[in-house]
């Protein structure tokens, strides 16, 4: 908890400096949030190539709009994820796709130095199973699961990003996981899934 607080203070310091035009602060914010944003976008789009483009665009929009960001009890992370969410919505609108698409080799971006071929295939299958199961969720449930588990946001951050109260997020999280569990269990995927993911 203390580390988290310290981190939030660091982020607020960087944001203030970035708003004052300090260019190195932008780069540090990029370093701080790239991982989370990329995972979230990658999870939502299922395409590492698209995720790379969209993630890059998130930070360009950050530069263009950061002067409009105000500390009104909303974490900066929520603001950034809202940008990412909106870009993903635009992406799907343009492509005419549903919110989730089958993965297109999303494990391709695994660092080959650390993953052998069999493991990559296992992970591809696992992620595909999860994504298919996620299609049975409502949009809000899916969004909460994506932000919490892929983006690594806290309940409070997710709530600010989506514009809901904390309790609503917990309820959506519960309902989403319940549905996810039912789908995976019905297809008898979960034991296999856990085995694949634990290697």
């Amino acid at each position: 908890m203390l580390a988290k607080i310290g981190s939030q203070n660091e982020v607020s310091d960087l944001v203030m400096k970035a708003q004052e035009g300090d260019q190195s602060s932008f780069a540090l914010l990029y370093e701080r949030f790239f991982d989370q944003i990329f995972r979230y976008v990658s999870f939502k789009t299922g395409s590492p190539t698209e995720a790379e483009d969209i993630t890059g665009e998130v930070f360009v929009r950050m530069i263009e709009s950061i002067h409009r960001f105000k500390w009104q009890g909303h974490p900066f992370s929520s603001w950034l994820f809202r940008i990412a969410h909106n870009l993903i919505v635009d992406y799907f609108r343009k492509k005419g796709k549903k919110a989730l698409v089958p993965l297109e080799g999303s494990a391709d971006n695994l660092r080959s130095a650390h993953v052998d071929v069999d493991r990559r295939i296992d992970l591809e299958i696992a992620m595909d199973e999860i994504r298919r199961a996620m299609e049975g969720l409502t949009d809000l449930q899916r969004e909460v699961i994506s932000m919490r588990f892929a983006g690594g946001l806290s309940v409070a951050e997710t709530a600010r990003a989506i514009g809901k109260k904390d309790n609503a997020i917990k309820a959506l999280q519960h309902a989403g996981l319940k549905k996810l569990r039912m789908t995976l269990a019905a297809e008898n995927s979960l034991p296999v899934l856990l085995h694949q993911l634990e290697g």
Partner: protein
Amino acid sequence: MKVTFEDALNDCLDRMAEGEDINKCVAGYSEYADELVRLLEAARSTMQANSSLTFSPAAKARGLAKLNRALSRQRPSSRWRLRGIHFRSVPRPVLLGIFAIVITFGAVGSTTAASSDSVPGDPLYWLKSLKERALLVMPRSEMGRAEAHASLASERGEEVRRLIARGKIHEAEDTMLRLNEHLNASAGYVGVLIFGDPLEMPTVRLSGRPSLTASTLKSSLKQDGTLMRVEMLRLLHDAPGPQQRRIRLMFRQSDLGYRVLLDALDGGSVSISPFVQAVPPGRYVR
């Protein structure tokens, strides 16, 4: 007060994200154990699948290059504060008008001359800052602005040396930061971004910017850098023991700032320190 299932679930999810075992989480909520385990297993599979998604260093570097290009389209913001006044909010014609009034009324003429030698903390330093702010808004070309910032970096260097000579080490350190800000701003106007931070961000030459003739700028920077090096060595030699470490650090900061910028302007690829590296132009162009 009894913990709700949703709160218990959320608590276990947060703890799992920190690496805690499912069973350890659930042990604290025995009344919900069975259902918790089922949902947490589903959550764990999702978390593990996502944690395996990593990006390639090349992808991250491409994103950084895109960020740098976007930054190059932004104008560096040199916010100056003087007794609570934010000069950034003052329109350019107003600033020029203020400066013109100051110069026109001769009674102030001698004061402005005296302010030229002032350093931070001196009574007339505010006037010097005002003049410099007006100087920065006057140039219309990017090279003009680059040279203006380089000139101000030189002025900050002079102030650093005077402050050190007066024993005002803390003020000198603050002024050194401003020196490097001016060098970075100068670099930005000629198409170079410098990051000197522990994350090893490299110096990049931005794509798409016009190739600016920088020979005059380089010449000025070389002279200023040499002067700074010589004078700082002298000050270091003469300084009392307790101050030497801090002065040595300031010496390194100024020397590094000038050397990195000059090297980047020359399109060099010499590694200057563990944390800053000049790279050839175009290396980070997508």
